[in-house]
């Protein structure tokens, strides 16, 4: 995460973990996003907030898919929150836009 614009921060909301991602998610640090998402599992539910993500490549998408699949296998909730239009475009290209639960904000993701 050498670039100061890139960041990935987890926040425990009590029975729900919010992972806020920011910047351009690419091969240079997508492993850190993956680690953060996987670490958030096992505490009730995970939401990945992507409003400030201006770019995401296939390695970033792979981190989301892996988190989603692991959450499902544990019966946990997993959702993408406020995905930016750049993220949505890549999800559509990967035909994953109908796969992930998408939410407008944290509250609707937690209460889903």
């Amino acid at each position, binding site marked *: 995460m050498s*670039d100061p614009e890139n960041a990935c921060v987890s926040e425990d909301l009590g029975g729900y973990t919010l992972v806020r991602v920011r910047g*351009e998610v*690419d091969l*240079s640090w997508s492993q850190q996003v993956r680690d953060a998402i996987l670490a958030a599992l096992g505490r009730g539910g995970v939401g990945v907030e992507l409003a400030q993500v201006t*770019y995401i490549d*296939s390695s970033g998408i792979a981190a989301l*898919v892996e988190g989603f699949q692991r959450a499902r296998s544990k019966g946990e909730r997993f959702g993408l929150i406020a995905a930016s239009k*750049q993220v949505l475009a890549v999800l559509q290209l990967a*035909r994953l836009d109908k796969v992930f639960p998408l939410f407008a904000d944290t509250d609707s993701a937690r209460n889903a």
Partner: protein
Amino acid sequence: MNAVALAAAGDSERRALRFLAELSQALAESLDLRATLNMAVTRIADFMQAEAASLFLLDHAGLIECRICVGPVDITGLKLAVGQGVVGRCVADNATQIVRDASRDARVNIRVDAETGFATRSILCAPLSNARGPIGALEVINRRDGSLFDEDDAEILRLVAAPAALAIGNAQLAHGLVEQQRIKRELELARRMQKSMLPRRRRGDFPIRGVNLPAHEISGDFYDFFDLADGRLAFVIGDVSGKGLDAAFLMVRVASMLRWIGARAPAPGAWLGEVNAELCRTLQDGRFVCAAVGQYDRASGEVRLASAGFPPALLHDAGEFEELPADGPPLGILAEADYGEREFVLGARALYLFSDGATDVRTGATDRLGEAGLRGLIARHAALAPEPRLRAVIGDLKRLRLVDDTTLLLVQEPCGAQAHGLLDLDFPAQATQMRSVRAALRHALDAQGIAPELRDQLVLAVDEACTNVIRHAYGGECTRRIALHVARERDMLAFELRDQAPAIDPGCLKPRDLSECKPGGLGLPFIAATMDDWKLEPAADGRGNILRMHKRIDIGEHE
């Protein structure tokens, strides 16, 4: 009132209520308002025991017109002013009128009786109104048994008028919506017809290109180009004064005239003169047309040009602009106007003709781009080939705010169709390099006027190709190099990615099926979904691999 009279009154009220309920339902269910109102007026006449009944509606001119009439004398179509006669008074006051003895009542219009021989004795008239006020009136005349209408009758007619007014109001609303839809459809049709009048973009190295951006559905601007019998090319650009449908119709007419006369290849000044004379004969209400016409001889490079009040044409060459002002007034103003013309050799220069919409583009709340601003845009994209340059200029204009129809015509010989490079990068195979590679690529694609959605997708595809080289060809990050070359030839973007890794068997690269949801292997499908074609092959000298990807971009027929 004794018991019998009371019972009779109760009975008549029940009858009235039942009638009202039936009438309301018939009106509410009505799909054909005219037929239903006809039926309703007949039933009202019967129920009220009246010899005649009529329904009046206010028209757009503020007159009250008889729309439906039953009885011995047909007064359908009769028009009254508000305040005139019993009906006019009823509408003016928005109040029920009773005339007990017509022969002695000043409100009664005696003309109809005089003309028809009908003897009006007693009249009841109730207003039809909605929330915004009166929309008409319902009138009944003469009880069939010869008795006079009383207050109870007036009350019943007032009640009956309410559902009738409601049904008419609904029908008028529905009619208004249908009318709006129809106008919208017709405008769309007009827009398509206008667009179809513009010449088709010619492929290959054709030297004339035009773009028309209507500010609204329809445009008062036009351009045209066509072949002359002697092999020269003729071109036309014009701007009709005013906006909207009448400007659009005039545009169609003037464009046809210019083409019709222009096909005989008159000298440009005479060409404008003929069209001007015809327009001066037929144009009214101060409208006029600004136009420029010309002929271009590709063999000699000679251009002949004449302008009728059109914004100055620009000749651009290596940073220098030459301005060619108009040769006479706009068409349709001065019948005796004389149009001069100018001749020059185009050479490698570019001739720009633009309607004033291009300089009227807003750069702020009120600031216009102006001619200097437009020159700046042209100069900024001067390095591009004609087609992408015109696109880039149009792209810039669109990013500002168009307030008027905007049309650009560019006459220039293509300077060879060879591909021109857009980007050359050489960087170590490290993931941290990719951010700046993407930024440089975005910048290069933006300069080509490529839409942001497609640009982002192309950047993603190239990024995926680079990270595949890092991860798979080099087997991880290292200091060896990746070279990216991006070029454009007309509407084709070419991406070339070279590495120095051991040769890869192209057969082992197959994009996976995206309908399966799994984390890895998305890079290649992204490339396949974005590019028109892609191919990986070993470099000719045996050192490394070359990935070639192509994407055709839509440069649009007329924008």
